[in-house]
């Protein structure tokens, strides 16, 4: 007690990575339907970092300005899910999801709406899978579009409740044969990590079984 941090065990981190992998993989199916092209995914990366470090990681990866679709999830765990891509790729994504037949002026006009809807489908798909696997429900806010440097994307009000440590999860995606790529990131602060640790423990028990389940059978 008295420590500011919550440590996840290797197996809990593994379980969280696997959950995010499941969530993003399912969400990629929806995106695949929308863009009619294969969506390539990286292996997810999960780390416990300071918010500054998360911002720096984003800044290192992308020199250009970013566009992000942002949704807040609330329930036993609370946090933010972001679909992030370089600003230069935003119109290309809209072109991909609208079928590529619209003139540029229509695409520009639709950009905001199409980004919000695409983000909503991907992020909700991902969060719904995670919530189902954890057997908890999550309320998800409406999508909001953010533009700017990585600092603006991450330094959102309200500031983290406890400490400045966030769980930073990201997974890269790219659409095959289209110049579109980006990543899904999730941020959670400390109180949520405590709750998450408990939920991951239950999830691991259900998934892998264990001595307790056997001996009380």
């Amino acid at each position, binding site marked *: 007690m008295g420590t500011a941090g919550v440590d996840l065990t*290797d*197996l809990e981190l*593994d*379980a969280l*990575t*696997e959950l995010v*992998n*499941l969530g993003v*993989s*399912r969400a*990629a*199916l929806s995106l*695949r339907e929308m863009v009619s092209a*294969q*969506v390539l*995914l990286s*292996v997810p990366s999960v780390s416990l970092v300071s918010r500054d470090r998360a911002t720096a990681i984003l800044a290192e990866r992308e020199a250009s300005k970013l566009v992000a679709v942002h949704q807040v999830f609330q329930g036993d765990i609370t946090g933010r899910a972001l679909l992030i891509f370089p600003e230069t790729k935003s119109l290309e994504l809209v072109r991909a999801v609208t079928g590529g037949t619209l003139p540029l002026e229509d695409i520009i006009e639709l950009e905001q709406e199409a980004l919000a809807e695409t983000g909503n489908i991907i992020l909700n798909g991902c969060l719904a*899978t995670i919530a189902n*696997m954890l057997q908890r429900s999550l309320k998800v806010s409406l999508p909001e579009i953010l533009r700017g440097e990585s600092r603006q994307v991450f330094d959102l009000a309200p500031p983290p409740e406890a400490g400045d440590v966030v769980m930073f999860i990201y997974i890269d995606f790219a659409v*095959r044969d289209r110049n579109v790529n980006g990543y899904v990131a999730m941020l959670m602060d400390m109180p949520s990590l405590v709750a998450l640790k408990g939920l991951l423990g239950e999830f*691991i028990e259900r*998934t*892998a*079984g264990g001595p307790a389940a056997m001996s009380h059978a």
Partner: protein
Amino acid sequence: MPFRVLVVDDSRLARMAIARALSSIRPDWVRVEAGDADEAMALARQEPVQMALLDFNMPGRDGLTLASELRALDPGMPVAVISANHQEEVVRRAREIGTTFLPKPLTEQAMEAFLDQVAPLPRAGGR
């Protein structure tokens, strides 16, 4: 000689889930586990395996690439590729190289159906 099945997934939890299902469906099989393709190939070369259950999305080479490499060692080996990413392209590639695609999270029923298809238990008399 015991039946050796190779289980490859970068997630330990996913390997535990597969192990749990396998040990209830085919308790006498020997499991050989690896966390990536390199480790898997090293194990398969060391001592032959009779079946492989592979995750698709792994650091290094993916499960489909690994499946092709394992097939080069043993063209008849039954291989299942397990993934939540059932996009057409992935499923088609899995079929093209003669592997079975199984959705993740893997249920015991799906695993049993696959095993019954590729490695049926010898029937006991009198049934």
